[in-house]
């Protein structure tokens, strides 16, 4: 086995060298051979880690075949605690977070919560309906730009712009959904990827409307209204959420509403129809599922959640710019869904925190922090392909052997 791995190591290293040498630049005046070796070194370290992991796994398999994995045992322990306590505890922690965190941590927390909303929205399309969408961030952009433009041109407040943003997001979702109704898998992924790029390029080049790459700025923050009593009598007072903790509580509220919404959808008739379409479209159609509408609904609802997150994002920064909506962002959201466990709500929440907070934690590594990110992803997918907290259905599917033996 070691011999095999060494062979792999040499071959991969050779390929990497071929790819890296031109990238590091022959002509560059600041050519540093050291940089190339550093990168190679990191790569080799990952491969060595791979060998170690494989060795540990194979030895474990030999020693204890019957032992249940630690994650499952931990899951059982967690399930022992009544649900209300665990959820209440998490909620209390989330509510108390700004009290002991500094501004930087709160800011990261806000970003994490935005990605929770995005991940849960994409989960409807990818996790439940089984449509691979690589351009999801386009709907986030639609939400952000809708609020920005409505606020800047017409002075609409966050709350009156939000429903318009949601409706627009849903319409755009149907626009991408309709032509791709008959597509599946790779073809759908390519079309949605192109669509995401189209939206970004339009935002980048439509100078008169979107101010191009300069972006839009000066939007009002989300506001809260409260009754006030002045000399003229009763009046609604406006409070703009400017401080980070107030924004944090605001997005926490949106995230909780999203979680409740997605959970209810998951358990509904529509949710079952989505799963049926994911499993087998023809069979779903023959069971009387109106596949066309149900698929469009998945796109529209997924887009609606992204649109809300986008509107908040633009309002929070008071600035938006096409480069916030790169393909990389779509990838990260998709990674959150896959890493957390396709179709699993708690998994996606945890994964959003892991994937968004991890690059921040590894900021000390500077340019190598994305490498740490990649290493986490790879290790996770090797060790737990069904995700951090897999949906029960998904766990059964990937560990059929365990399931069937325990049943019979």
């Amino acid at each position: 086995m070691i011999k095999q791995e060494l062979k792999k190591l040499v071959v991969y290293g050779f390929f990497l060298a071929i790819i890296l040498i031109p990238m590091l630049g022959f002509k560059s005046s600041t050519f540093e051979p050291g940089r190339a070796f550093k990168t190679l070194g990191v790569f080799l370290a990952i491969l060595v880690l791979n060998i170690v992991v494989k060795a540990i796994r194979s030895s474990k398999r030999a020693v204890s075949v019957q032992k249940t994995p630690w994650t499952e045992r931990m899951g059982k322990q967690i399930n022992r605690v009544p649900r209300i306590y665990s959820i209440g505890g998490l909620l209390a922690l989330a509510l108390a977070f700004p009290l002991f965190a500094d501004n930087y941590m709160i800011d990261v927390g806000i970003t994490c919560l935005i990605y929770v909303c995005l991940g849960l929205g994409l989960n409807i399309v990818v996790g439940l309906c089984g449509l691979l969408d690589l351009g999801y961030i386009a709907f986030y952009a639609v939400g952000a730009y809708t609020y920005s433009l409505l606020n800047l041109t017409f002075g609409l407040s966050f709350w009156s712009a939000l429903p318009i943003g949601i409706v627009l997001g849903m319409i755009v979702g149907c626009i991408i959904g309709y032509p791709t109704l008959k597509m599946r898998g790779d073809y759908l992924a390519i079309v949605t990827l192109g669509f995401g790029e189209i939206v970004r390029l339009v935002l980048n080049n439509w100078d008169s409307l979107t101010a191009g790459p300069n972006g839009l700025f000066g939007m009002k923050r989300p506001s809260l209204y409260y009754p006030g009593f002045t000399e003229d009598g009763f009046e609604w007072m406006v409070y703009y959420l400017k401080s980070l903790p107030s924004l944090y509580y605001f997005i926490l509220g949106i995230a909780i509403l999203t979680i409740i919404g997605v959970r209810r959808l998951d358990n509904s008739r529509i949710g079952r129809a989505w799963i049926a379409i994911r499993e087998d479209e023809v069979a779903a159609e023959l069971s009387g599922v109106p596949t066309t509408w149900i698929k469009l609904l998945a796109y529209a609802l997924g887009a609606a959640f992204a649109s809300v997150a986008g509107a908040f994002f633009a309002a929070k920064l008071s600035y938006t710019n096409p480069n916030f909506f790169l393909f990389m962002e779509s990838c990260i959201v998709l990674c959150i869904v896959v890493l957390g466990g396709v179709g699993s709500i708690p998994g996606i929440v945890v994964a959003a925190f892991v994937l968004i907070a991890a690059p921040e934690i590894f900021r000390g590594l500077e340019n190598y922090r994305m490498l740490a990110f990649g290493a986490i992803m790879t290790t996770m997918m090797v060790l737990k392909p069904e995700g951090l907290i897999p949906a029960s259905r998904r766990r059964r599917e990937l560990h059929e052997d365990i399931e069937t033996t325990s049943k019979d």
Partner: protein
Amino acid sequence: MTSRQAILELSDIHTYYGNIHALKGVSCAIPTGEIACLIGANGAGKSTTLMTIFGVQRASQGEIFFKGTSIQHLRPEKVAALGVSQTPEGRQIFPRMSTHENLEMGAFLRKDKTGIQEDIEWVFSLFPVLKDRTRQLGGTLSGGEQQMLAIGRALMSRPELLLLDEPSLGLAPKLVEKIFETILEINKAGVTIFLVEQNAHMALTISGSGYVMETGRIVLADKASALLENEQVKKAYLGE
């Protein structure tokens, strides 16, 4: 076979797959309460006929009547709501749903919970094997069990007309016999059955009337017992 008694009637149906003319004027009538079968070789257009009836494939010409109303313009879910049900070819069940969930999906258009529960019990009484597999995933069932599940799922919408697409495909002879016995039993419960089969002998034995299809056309239509004696059918499909 007068048209007044027919639950389903096809008149001059043409269906295309892109440029391929798959059905070239199919006409037939399924008498209410009977088992009718459609036999023919691979690629004759048998499955296409069923898909066209259900509205998954659109007929470019011709008319389909279900209980006297024209249905060729309806979407599949509307056809299902009228009381037609179909098992897809090659036992397409939902592999990652349990047996119970599969059956529940079959009742997707129904809202009467007690009725659904009764029908699940009925399916279990027709196929007792499935009862032991209630919580097992569809994809882990054996081929025969999957076929039973597919038929069971189709029954869950309480259809008046059941379209069966090759229920014997890839099953052991003993299982085929068992499945055909159950089909007879379902028919006795009042469900009209339109059976598409390659296993011509079995299909004609249990059917009241039969149709023979060749390259998108119906070439023979008669009582099933007469078709069993027909020299042409004997030679081409019964191997005698």
